[in-house]
């Protein structure tokens, strides 16, 4: 499955989060959540173990509620494909602090590596056509580091980045999967007490 010219997903996510500051990170169902966990647990991480297709919308809700904080959605091509309409919803709302990053291995890695539609479908073109003008494909770690710096600018989004990654299945790094714990911890980090 490995192709020499494709990026390693763990390196990509580690680079995206290395200088995250106050950013909130939402991880889509599947390997994206493992990648975020591998980069280090954080009170401002919201891990998903289900709700396929919902990652971008969860990110939009946070972004609209916290317009001064960078909000990152890091998800996979399969999860993104199930919620393509949410790109149109983001394109209409245009939250300036939201960045959507798709780790695109053109396959459903969690279920055995079946082919996904991104072998044909161009997610960057879809995102741009939905009204997310700053939609790019990133191919090198230098480009990813530059994008990570741009994500901190909460006055110029929304942005979308598609990153073709190596389809190799890496060892799972399991994040916490207790939703109430993760949510309460995130809200606490933002200054909201339990009800």
């Amino acid at each position, binding site marked *: 499955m490995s192709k020499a010219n494709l990026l390693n997903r763990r390196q990509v996510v580690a680079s995206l989060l290395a200088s995250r500051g106050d950013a*909130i990170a*939402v991880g889509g169902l599947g390997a994206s959540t493992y990648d975020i966990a591998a980069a280090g647990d954080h009170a401002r991480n*919201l891990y998903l173990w*289900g*709700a*396929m*297709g*919902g*990652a971008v*919308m*969860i*990110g*939009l*809700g*946070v*972004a*609209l*509620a*916290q317009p001064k904080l960078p909000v990152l959605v890091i998800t996979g091509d399969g999860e993104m494909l199930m*919620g393509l*309409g*949410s790109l*149109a*919803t983001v394109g*209409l*709302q245009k939250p300036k602090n939201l960045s959507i990053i798709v780790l695109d291995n053109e396959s459903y890695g969690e279920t055995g590596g079946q082919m996904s539609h991104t072998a044909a479908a161009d997610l960057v073109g879809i995102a741009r056509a939905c009204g997310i003008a700053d939609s790019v494909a990133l191919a090198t770690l230098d480009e990813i580091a530059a994008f990570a710096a741009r994500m901190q600018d909460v006055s110029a989004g929304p942005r979308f980045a598609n990153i073709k990654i190596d389809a190799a299945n890496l060892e799972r790094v399991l994040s916490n999967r207790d*939703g*109430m714990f993760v*949510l309460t911890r*995130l*809200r606490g980090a*933002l*200054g*909201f007490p339990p*009800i």
Partner: protein
Amino acid sequence: MHARADASTDAASWPEDIFAILQRFEVRQVPYVPDAGHSQLIERVLGEPSMRGIALTTEEEGVALLLGAWAGGQRGVLLMQSSGVGNCINMLSLTQIFRFPFLTLVTMRGEWGEFNPWQVPMGTSTQGVLELAGIRVLRASHPDEVREVMEAAASQAYDACTPTAVLLSQRLIGTKVFVK
């Protein structure tokens, strides 16, 4: 095509009752898939600076959005039609996993003199589907009970984090009239 059989096409009072309660509970994000029965409320939301009306492409987007809103410290309410409830089923898992304040207001089709048979299957199963998904269901059928039902729904959803749906019955909204 959007005419209704009774006087509720003119500015009805019950959407104003709903709007007032949403304001009092400091609801900030209002995702919606348009429905004629919600049109007056949607107009009020879009004209209110403290609220953000968010048009969706499909209803389950709104369930996920409300989780994000709460994670960021804001309350929301999802406006949809009964046909949209079926679209939400898997995403409603979020209400059990995260126990966040979930409130949806569902305008009913497929009951009370429905003309369009295509609305009947989902309209008939709407309440059952919601209850199987762990959502408490309240219903308002008459204009003079909307305020009381909304008060109860908003209180249990926002104060007790009990996921709640209010079904606004077709009898309340008025049956959609199809004209050639």
